[in-house]
């Protein structure tokens, strides 16, 4: 009997341990935040998540300050970005854009392969809005929103 108790205790301890390990692992991975960036010349100081969502989902084409918005996507970060922003999987987002694109009135934001190319586009265009990994942010752009 005592042997069985020891066994159950052991299993319970192992369970807690495994759970703790998993927690730390995922927390570590999610530390890679995504930041929404904008041009420094744009007087826009920050955006909330709804504003970002409206811009990136094509609901609005203008920024809160009235400038014509030019959203750009980073290809590798795109699934995570949309997941964080809308809580929807990327397939659904793609379908959404496909539907809108089919009607021919609007097309999804342009895509760029990496953070650097996004940075350069944002640097070059006053009204461009993009997103990159927070670790690659520099002073040439303004962080408008941090998604985590």
């Amino acid at each position, binding site marked *: 009997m005592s042997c069985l108790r020891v066994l159950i205790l052991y299993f319970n301890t192992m369970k807690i341990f495994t759970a703790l390990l998993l927690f730390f692992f995922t927390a570590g991975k999610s530390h890679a935040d995504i930041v929404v960036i904008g041009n420094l010349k744009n007087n826009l100081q920050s955006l909330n998540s*709804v504003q970002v969502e409206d811009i990136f989902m094509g609901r609005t084409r203008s920024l809160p300050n009235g400038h014509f918005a030019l959203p750009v996507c980073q290809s590798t970060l795109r699934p995570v970005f949309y997941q964080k922003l809308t809580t929807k999987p990327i397939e659904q987002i793609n379908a959404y854009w496909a539907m809108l694109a089919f009607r021919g009135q609007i097309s999804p934001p342009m895509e760029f392969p990496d953070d650097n190319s996004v940075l350069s586009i944002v640097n070059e265009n006053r009204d461009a809005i993009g997103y990159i990994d927070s670790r690659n942010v520099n002073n040439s752009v303004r962080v408008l929103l941090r998604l985590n």
Partner: protein
Amino acid sequence: MNLFNGKNLHHKLLGYIFLATFVFTSIATFISFHIEMNHANQKAQVMIDQLIDTIEPTAAIAVYSNNVQIAEDVLNGLLRNNVVHKAIITSDQGLSLEKTKGTQTDHQQEIIRELFSPFGTRKSIGQVSVTSNAAFILSEAQDAAQTNAIQFFILVGLTLLFMLLLVHSLFSKPLIRISNTLRNILAGEQESIEPLEDNKNDELGGLVININKILALLTTKLSTQQVLRKRVEFAEKKLRNIFESTSAGLFLLDKDGKILTCTPTLLKILSYEDNHLIAINGQDFASLFFKEPMQFQQMMQNALEMEQLEAQDLMLHNDTKEHPLWVHCLVSKIIDAFGVTRFEGVVFDISNRVASEKAMHYEANHDSLTGLLRRNAAELQLRKHLSSAKSASTIVLLLDLDGFKAANDTYGHDVGDIVLIQSARRLESCVRHNDIVCRLGGDEFLIILFNCDPISTGFSIAEEIIIAIKKPVAINKNVSVNIGVSIGIALFPMHGNNVETLIKSADEAMYEVKRKGKNGYGIKNKNGIISVSRPAEHTYGVRH
């Protein structure tokens, strides 16, 4: 309505059931339509809900992205469904799109669904509103109700048909058989109904058994009655024979003497020409048959008052001089079972008896040779007349032929008889119609002149007689007899107030004439002296 007056019970039944089915189906269809209408409305709502479920994500995207094209696609998609009449999409960003199909006949509630952003936030960004198509719902309900009605009708119809067949085979057929058999029984071909094979133990079998019982009872009763009827018929025939062949004419009259019924013999006796017995019913018996209806009416009156049998000989209406018809009639009052007073009577033909009686009477009163009245009869009549009120101015003439005895002796009795007959005729021709000429016997005659006023008429008649008798009586070519007459006259009441004194006075006057030369007439005057007169001689010539 012809259906309900059908000859067959099952046709009648079918008619009623059909009517009931029609009514029930109508009610059921009406209710069913309302239920189906409700159902269709609910169904339409569910359908629209489901439709909205289907288009919701797309509509949300359209509203979210403010995309008119998508919104239009959504609305077109919605309107492709028959249940949708109108669809509207509105967004809080100013998008408003409405599409309609067909015309709305009835007001329908619109179903509104809030649209939320497809991404994350549960915040209303617009709405989609759909109105159902009333005409579609109505036609759906109608179709459903119609289908229900047809199904119901078919079901009930089949049940009916089955019931009809059942009724036909279980009731109608056995009943028709019973009915036909009963008809045959009435026609006398059969005496009882054969038991029904399939209905031995049910009500119809019981009916057959009961009918057979009644039939058996009836047959027994009928045969008994037949025997009785034959007896009655025999008795009636006997009575009828008696009634019709009786020699007595029977009759029944009502209170007023109208004929109620009578035997054929009565009509024969009464010599009634008309053969129709019925025709005389209701006619007055007395005036129809009798010469003097008053007599019969008096008989009825007497019978009524005295309550006894009245009997009398009566002369009939259609009586002729040659053949007088007489009947002996008996009448009595009766009171029938209903308390009504009537007269019954009987009539016997006595014409022959009366005829012979009359003949006897005639022979008794009349002289067989001359046919004149005999002395007794004449005296009887004179006596009667003298006692009546009209007795005044009666004249009696007593005659005796002069020279008759000699003629009788000379030529014989036969010639004497001829002379007597001839003289009798001449006397009759001289007197008036009502006067009486009588042969007293031998060559003596008596003449009675009634109402002979003035008296001179009597004398002129006497003169005429004298002249008439004086004429020769031709016996044959060679022989003619001459006789005369002596007449004695007596006047009533001058020469007597009875027959005997009058005749005596006349007799005396006649003998005075004989004494004074015959061929004249004599009459006693106030002093008792008899004066004899003769007709003037010249009158002979005139008469010749």
